[in-house]
């Protein structure tokens, strides 16, 4: 205990007081760490909030059910219930239907409507009714008895300003209907799902409202406590073909998988800011250890052991970590307000609907953020602490000039760096681990470390190479600067390493985002072709489960002289927990105006087969995730049909909710079972007219003819929306990148400032022997220019390597897709000089520091 107290005292005397003297440097490092920690924590908390919201909703909706009966791509016959309830192992069974619907007014937000039998459902889900006048029992009896009645969740009741007895008009895929509000759900159980934006109605009302008679989405089961695996098999045996029996977690897990992949990528990106901050800590601790070397020798000569010095500097690193993390709290609070909304919107748009009500501070996430921040700060301080440990006490004497260890050549570090870089390729070839691109991320880390380790050697070589040439071209200041850079070894190289990392990230992400955007733009142009897209109301939200009404299809025939109609039907299925869409398409009609974006296979051979219904084509994502490729058999249960078809080829597709499999609509109907159109694309036959005006007119005509019964979106707007969503998704990435660059600039500023202060005696000696103020300041500026330009160039080179890893390894392993590699030379050629200018501007404080005190004073001082 006494040793610990003494150590604390020594730390306060030696480290904290020195930090207080140089508070600006310490605050700069703390700001860097705080920014990194704030970004890392707020990103994770934001995504976690969405993940929690989704999981909670799914669990609340699943209730106490331990198994769920579904028919992939179809419905379950309602009459199965009586057979199930007669099974000795089944305690309860409840048929359930759910859909998104909304109030029939412009701009209304959709909400979840759940239909079930209130009596059968009671054992499975918790919900209670709050009604003003009637007792609860009467209310749900009314729900059973009176058609078109519903009970609202509290959020909805508040939003609609509805009370018992009010009537609201709801619209759905097929129709609009008035519903009478019977009461509100108490804020518990099922009422908490979907952020409270949920309503319940009787199953018969639901079926009438949606036009699904005698069928349900699923039957939730609860087994008796003594039920065994044999009972489960028994239950499976009584099920008709095509019905699956699974735990309710299956649906939840596939949604969670998508959110987690997104979370991992954002976490890694936000971790990069912390990683750059680590360089900042290393830089300052290393500079402290080096500049205070005489004091370290004094400590050693008075009896301090090497371990005392080691732990002092390790403690400095830990202090930066802890204090930086605490400083991150207000910054994180600020960031999270913007991130929470942005992230949940992105997840809802790209993956699954989430309704984030509040942010919960997860203790584990806070602990993770704290631990990671402190760990990397301590790790950053490790090497300087080890070097400090080796300070000899004899350095306290003036004769320490004799027998001093020769300056270490950075060659060893460079060898280490080369080894790291060489390992990048084999690592990147390894497959994903647990569907996470961990080898890919490790390869990225080694790439950064490799380039950072090469930096001192590169500085030495470039400094040596350029020094004579620079003396001729730019005079003595440039020469001295290059010599100093050559001899400064690891001290300046650390800040260069930070700049390399930040610039590499910037460059690689500019390339990746550009490549991705170009590819997506091409895909939308080729594959998301259509002048007008037509679906049922809220079709996308309800996963296109409700076909377009026959009367709508018949009414549209009136326009056949002007337009070609290309119908489709989509089924949302899973392939062992991996979600994908099985899209039936009028292939011939599609190919008249659009095309697939081929990745593998010869379209000239494949397309005729596809048109003849001889096989399917799958998306790259589907192929990468399932391991199925051209030549393999595609098998699926779609409604009442079991499908087995060969895979003919692979196409690029950038839908975000899993993979896609395409098949001919007409051949599906002929071969398997009747199915109706879920949506359509409309193309004008006359391509020479003003298509925008034509679309507008057609929309008006359709509404005039059949009323507002369908959702319509012009192709131009749809394609624009895809790209807008893309840009919004990567807005977060851009912000994270800029933060990393700011941290790197802070590193440059800190390093140069400290180096100038350390060398004040040297610089003033130069002055004393004839150098002018201008020449000395010019020398410092040249040094800054060296560090920044070398860091930038190395960063750009590293960035190109990194971009390959991101495009062809990380994206493929995270999301299953790759894209066409392209370089945005325009953006790079503007941004790279801008970064140089910014980093040089960060060097200005150091230049100003040079003659803070009169030279004579400094030369006289000891």
């Amino acid at each position, binding site marked *: 205990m006494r040793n610990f107290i003494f150590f604390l005292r020594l730390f306060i005397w030696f480290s904290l007081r020195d930090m207080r*003297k140089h508070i600006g440097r310490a605050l700069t490092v703390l700001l860097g760490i705080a920014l990194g920690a704030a970004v890392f924590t707020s990103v994770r908390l934001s995504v976690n909030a969405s993940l929690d919201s989704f999981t909670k909703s799914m669990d609340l909706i699943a209730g106490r059910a331990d198994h769920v009966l579904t028919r992939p791509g179809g419905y379950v016959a309602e009459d199965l219930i009586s057979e199930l309830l007669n099974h000795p192992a089944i305690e309860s069974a409840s048929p359930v239907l759910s859909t998104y619907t909304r109030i029939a007014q412009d701009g209304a937000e959709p909400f979840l409507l759940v239909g079930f039998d209130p009596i059968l459902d009671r054992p499975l889900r918790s919900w209670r009714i709050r009604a003003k006048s009637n007792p609860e029992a009467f209310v749900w009896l009314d729900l059973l008895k009176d058609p078109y009645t519903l009970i609202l969740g509290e959020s909805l009741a508040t939003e609609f300003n509805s009370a018992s007895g009010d009537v609201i008009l709801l619209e759905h895929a097929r129709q609009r209907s008035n519903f009478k509000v019977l009461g509100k759900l108490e804020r518990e159980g099922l009422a908490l799902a979907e952020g409270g934006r949920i309503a319940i109605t009787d199953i018969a009302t639901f079926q009438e409202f949606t036009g699904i008679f005698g069928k349900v989405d699923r039957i939730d089961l609860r087994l008796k406590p003594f039920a065994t695996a044999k009972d489960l098999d028994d239950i499976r045996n009584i099920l008709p073909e095509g019905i699956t029996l699974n735990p309710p977690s299956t649906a939840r897990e596939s949604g969670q998988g998508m959110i987690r992949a997104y979370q991992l990528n954002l976490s890694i990106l936000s971790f990069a800011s912390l990683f750059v901050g680590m360089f900042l800590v290393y830089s300052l601790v290393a500079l402290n250890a080096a500049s205070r070397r005489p004091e370290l020798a004094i400590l050693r000569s008075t009896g301090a*052991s090497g371990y005392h010095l080691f732990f002092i500097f390790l403690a400095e690193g830990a202090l930066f970590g802890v204090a930086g993390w605490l400083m991150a709290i207000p910054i994180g609070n600020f960031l999270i307000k913007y991130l929470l909304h942005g992230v949940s919107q992105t997840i809802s748009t790209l993956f699954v609907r989430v309704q984030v009500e509040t942010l919960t501070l997860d203790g584990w996430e806070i602990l993770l953020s704290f631990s990671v921040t402190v760990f990397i700060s301590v790790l950053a301080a490790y090497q300087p602490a080890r070097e400090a440990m080796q300070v*000899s006490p*004899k350095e306290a004497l003036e004769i320490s000039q004799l027998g001093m260890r020769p300056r270490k050549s950075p060659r060893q570090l460079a060898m280490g760096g080369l080894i790291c870089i060489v390992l990048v390729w084999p690592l990147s070839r390894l497959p994903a681990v647990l569907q996470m691109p961990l080898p890919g991320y490790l390869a990225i880390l080694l790439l950064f470390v490799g380039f950072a380790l090469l930096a001192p050697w590169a500085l030495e070589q470039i400094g040596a190479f350029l020094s004579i040439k620079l003396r001729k071209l730019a005079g003595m200041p440039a020469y001295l600067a290059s010599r100093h850079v050559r001899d400064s070894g690891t001290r300046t190289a650390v800040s260069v390493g930070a700049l390399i990392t930040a610039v590499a990230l910037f460059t690689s992400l500019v390339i990746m985002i550009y490549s991705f955007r170009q590819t997506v733009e091409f895909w939308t142009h080729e594959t998301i072709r259509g002048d007008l897209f037509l679906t049922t109301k809220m079709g996308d939200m309800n996963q296109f489960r409700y076909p377009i009404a026959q009367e709508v299809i018949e009414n549209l025939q009136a326009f056949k002289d002007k337009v070609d109609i290309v119908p489709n039907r989509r089924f949302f299925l899973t392939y062992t927990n991996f979600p994908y869409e099985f899209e039936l398409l009028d292939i011939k009609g599609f190919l008249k105006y659009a095309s697939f974006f081929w990745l593998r296979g010869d379209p000239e051979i494949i397309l005729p087969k596809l048109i003849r219904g001889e096989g399917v084509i799958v998306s790259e994502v589907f192929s990468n995730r399932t391991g199925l490729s051209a030549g393999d058999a595609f098998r699926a249960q779609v409604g009442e049909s079991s499908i087995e078809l060969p895979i003919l080829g692979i196409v690029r597709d950038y839908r975000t909710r899993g993979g896609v499999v395409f098949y001919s609509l007409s051949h599906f109907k002929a071969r398997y079972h009747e199915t109706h159109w879920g949506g359509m694309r409309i193309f004008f036959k006359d391509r020479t007219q003003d298509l925008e005006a034509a679309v507008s007119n057609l929309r008006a005509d359709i509404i005039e003819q059949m009323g507002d019964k369908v959702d319509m979106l012009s192709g131009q707007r749809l394609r624009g929306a895809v790209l807008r969503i893309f840009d919004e998704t990567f807005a977060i990435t851009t912000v994270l990148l800029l933060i990393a660059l700011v941290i790197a600039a802070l590193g440059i500023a800190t390093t140069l400032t400290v180096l100038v202060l350390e060398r004040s005696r040297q610089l003033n000696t130069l002055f004393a022997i004839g150098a002018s103020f201008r020449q000395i300041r010019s020398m410092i500026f040249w040094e800054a220019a060296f560090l920044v330009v070398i860091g930038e160039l190395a960063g750009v080179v590293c960035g190109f390597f990194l971009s390959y890893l991101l495009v062809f390894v990380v994206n493929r392993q995270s999301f299953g897709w790759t894209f066409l590699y392209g370089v945005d030379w325009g953006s790079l050629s503007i941004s790279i000089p801008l970064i140089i200018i910014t980093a040089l501007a960060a060097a200005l404080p150091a230049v100003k520091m040079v003659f803070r005190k009169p030279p004579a004073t400094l030369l006289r001082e000891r």
Partner: protein
Amino acid sequence: MELNKSQPMIAAKGLTRIYKLGGSEVIGINQVDLEIAAGELVILKGNSGSGKSTLLSLLAGLDRPTRGDLTVANHDLNQTSNSELTHFRRQVVGMIFQSFNLLPTLNVLENVCLPALLAGRSIAESRLKATDLLKWIGLDTRLNHLPAQLSGGEMQRTAIARALINDPSIILADEPTGNLDSHNGQIVIDLLAELNRKWGRTIMIATHSSLADSQATVKLFLKDGMITNHL
């Protein structure tokens, strides 16, 4: 360790220290044989580069000899491990440097306490001892001053107090008056002489100055790393 009074305080035989500088070798000291009894005040004289500071660094345990035997206060400095040397520097030797070598972020009292705290003494005990020493040395009004606020003489006196805090058996001073004017230099020498006369400390002073000549009980002359005269 209890000193054996019959044994010399310092015993060196064939003591040699060679430094490697790039490809060449520089001889710090060469085949030095030396015996100093306890309680002596030794002056070490010689020109720059004669090996005075090298010899002191070996005696202080700051460096290790290349060859030869060296025993200081019954500690065989050839055979000691690094941790034993650390202990030696704490407890056995008090070192005074030409450039004072005070820690700039510690005040006078803290600088003096530091070796005692390193030796494991409590803060209270260390403060008490340090205060007494500083009072004796005439710096009791400067306890809370930082080194930057002291004159050269005050800094060196602080360094002397620091060197004494753990009651070392031997005090080694490397050019203690080198950065002082003659008045302050004399004060420092008188303090060291008093330590030797009154308290029987063994003191070795490496110096160019003649201020300590009259106080010395032993004079050693070094040239080119070897003792040329022993008076």
